[in-house]
């Protein structure tokens, strides 16, 4: 189960599990974004490699056209590991959880 929407402060909120069966939906949502955004991962449990690819595609487009891209906040430990192993911690601005 996955949900993606704009939060009260204009941030992107993704909840649930971003696996291959949900990647297209997230890609469509992100394609409509035309300015730098914060993406809140507080309630995102899981992201697969296809999900990472969708975020990368959005980041490339936004940094090219808007000058800045997505800032990711509140990643859980496992997702943060995957971002580090991917080198995505150098491609996205990542802010740690409040607890860290």
């Amino acid at each position, binding site marked *: 189960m996955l949900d993606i929407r704009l939060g009260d402060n204009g941030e992107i909120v993704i909840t649930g*599990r971003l*696996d*291959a*069966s949900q990647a297209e939906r997230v890609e469509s949502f992100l394609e409509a974004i035309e300015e730098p955004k914060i993406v809140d991962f507080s309630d995102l449990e*899981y992201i*697969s*490699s*296809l999900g*990472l*690819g*969708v975020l*990368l*595609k959005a*980041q*490339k487009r936004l*940094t090219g056209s808007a000058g800045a891209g997505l800032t990711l906040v509140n990643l859980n430990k*496992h997702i943060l*590991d*995957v971002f580090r*192993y*991917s*080198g995505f911690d*150098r*491609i996205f601005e990542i802010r740690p959880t409040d607890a860290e």
Partner: protein
Amino acid sequence: MERTFKRSVNALEKVFAFIGEFFDDEQIDGNHLYAISFSVEELFTNMLKYNVGASRDILIALRKLDNRLEVRLTDFDVDPFDITKIEEIDVSRPLDEREPGGLGIHLVKKLVDRIEYEYVDRRSTTTVIKMLG
């Protein structure tokens, strides 16, 4: 514990439920669940992507041996596809040189302790091993 799954990304929900069931039955530390789910999804979706002409369901077998977890995915009547032979990608490249895709196998290699591949009688089997220590 083993089960077969339809060749569709829509089968992933059932695949994850199967993995969760196995973790519960074997009382495996939930900290390992992400690595195993990620690896199984990557191998499963690679089989869908690269073994296009195949029609049979994909077999997933999970086994716990002492402090070791073995996950085996088998695709039947297909050409070989050995993920252990795939070249490493360079994750230090800047954004403008990165492309979506190609990351999955690199990440599986990071998340598990060993990957083995076997191809016999047009049966393609990839096994990942995760130490539970």
